[in-house]
């Protein structure tokens, strides 16, 4: 360690100190980003690794000779087994898209009605929604299961869709955003004689686009990644969605799967949520700005 020359002025020393703390900060952030990104890179690489690289010693993180063979194997050769992998993709897509659509419509309608029409009891309902934000869905899983099985929906798409339409989180996001809607616009339409639902659908919904797009993103992510519901509600192999199917494919919990097809399946299970988020990023940020809770 060198001792600093004494002629240095106070100002320069402070600047030096700031610089060192800045470098430390950059190192910390870089380390954090390596931690978050490395497994993702690893995941992408393994999906494109040929067999020869998957089983190589020493193990490789980066792929040298990328190939699409894993995807070809996954989507074609598995069709000879009982359930083709494309069926799981379809199940996941169908369940997710229907859930997202219904959640957008139901939650936006509710939030709009609460904010812009303020019926008696709206304040109480909002208090309950806020309270519901603070416990996890696991608390209500048993009664939900009893309802779903009581209505005879076990092993159906509806079992995966209906319980996750009206979530407190989604409602809350749109409700906060709804407060920004100008009343004058709605009133103008009302004077023109437009019906209430028409006003909501043609005037409010386009203005609430950021809010419900954000809701759509979160609803997509949670529905697509949901492994708990299919585990509980689905019995037949052909009704499974991707997360559950992937686990079965990988050989069950705790088993290290080293096959190329599992790598490809992991990629196909992970990529959609990231793509959806990346496409909608701007709108998500617009909406989240209003997401604070004032207590």
């Amino acid at each position: 360690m060198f001792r600093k020359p004494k002629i240095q002025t106070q100002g320069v020393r402070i600047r030096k100190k700031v610089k060192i703390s800045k470098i430390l900060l950059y190192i910390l952030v870089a380390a954090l980003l390596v931690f978050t990104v490395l497994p993702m890179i690893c995941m992408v690489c393994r999906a494109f690794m040929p067999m020869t690289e998957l089983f190589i010693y020493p193990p490789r993180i980066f792929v040298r000779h990328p190939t699409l063979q894993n995807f070809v194997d996954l989507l074609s050769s598995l069709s000879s087994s009982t359930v083709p992998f494309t069926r799981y993709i379809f199940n996941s897509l169908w369940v997710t898209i229907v859930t997202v659509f219904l959640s957008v419509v139901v939650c936006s309608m509710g939030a709009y009605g609460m904010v812009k029409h303020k019926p008696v009891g709206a304040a109480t309902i909002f208090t309950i929604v806020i309270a519901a934000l603070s416990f996890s869905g696991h608390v209500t899983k048993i009664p939900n299961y009893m309802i779903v099985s009581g209505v005879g929906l076990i092993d159906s798409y509806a079992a995966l869709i209906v319980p996750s339409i009206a979530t407190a989180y989604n409602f809350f996001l749109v409700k906060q955003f709804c407060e920004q809607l100008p009343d004058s616009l709605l009133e103008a339409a009302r004077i023109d004689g437009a019906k209430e639902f028409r006003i909501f659908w043609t005037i409010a919904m386009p203005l609430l686009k950021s809010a419900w797009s954000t809701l759509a993103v979160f609803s997509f992510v949670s529905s697509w990644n949901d492994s708990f519901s299919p585990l509980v509600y689905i019995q037949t192999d052909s009704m499974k969605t991707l997360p559950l199917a992937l686990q079965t494919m990988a050989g069950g919990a705790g088993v290290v799967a080293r096959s190329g097809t599992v790598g490809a399946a992991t990629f196909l299970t992970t990529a959609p949520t990231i793509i959806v988020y990346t496409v909608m990023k701007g709108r998500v940020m617009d909406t989240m700005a209003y997401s604070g809770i004032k207590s």
Partner: protein
Amino acid sequence: MSSKTTAGAQSSAVMLKPGESKLHHFWRVNKTGWGFLLPFMVLFLTFTVIPVFVAMALSVTDYNMIQVPNFTGLTNYRLLLLEDDVFIIAVQNTLVFACIIGPAGYIMSFGMAWFISLCKRGRGALALAFYAPSLTSGTAMSVIWLVIFAGDRTGYLNHLLIKVGLISDPILWTKDATYILPVIVIISAWMSMGTGFLVFLAGLSNIDPELYEAGRVDGIKNPLQQLFYITLPLMKPQLLFGSINTIVSSLAVFDVATAVAGFPSPNYSAHTIVAHLYDYAFTRFQMGYASAIAMFLFAITFGLSRICMRVFRSET
């Protein structure tokens, strides 16, 4: 309430028309709002609100999906808290997870959001790099984590540690009960680090730059002072929302734990409250007992969230 809140442009519709009964007026004023809220309320009550009370009621019975439930008082809770050793392990594990993942994730989310908000370029890419793990499925990514933590020499971590010379023989990360908990903490931390991130990022970008300018005039010298005197107090609503989300998610660790360590895990070393709940509810169908577990989870998350609401109370 109705007359006050729909004031202004709508006031003509709200006033009592001549010859109109009070009841009819009440209906006319509220029907549109209720109409819009109806689909949401039906589903929300059926799958969220009523289930909480049903679970509460079931937790004092011995319901098992087949026989008619009998009222058993607090027996389930007594068994759960005093005699179920596995549950005690599950609570300990869950608390270890939550106490590490929760605060660490919360602080890192905020730190990262703050860092990004100070960056001039590359915000989108940085945000995506940090947030991407939160978008992934726990069961899907556990496939990759199992390769990283594989117990033989070909596991990435074992290979690295052997190469560096820290260990000479590969460690069975996901089989050895002493390592399972730390491994799952790392994976869960990876997955849930972004829980409050977007909320914080949006909140930070929303703060009026003029306030920082005013702060500078008032003698705030460095970014750290700026953070404590201006940014944090203004962000209370976002900090609250983020903290509630963090509490709920960090106490619900389950799918990563079972996907990595198997179910049941060796010596119950990755057993969590939700895993215990799942075990009793959906493999043994002892719904009464499982409901008591659910109520325990409910009480903890709800209680902690209430505390957060006190801490981040915004002065109005």
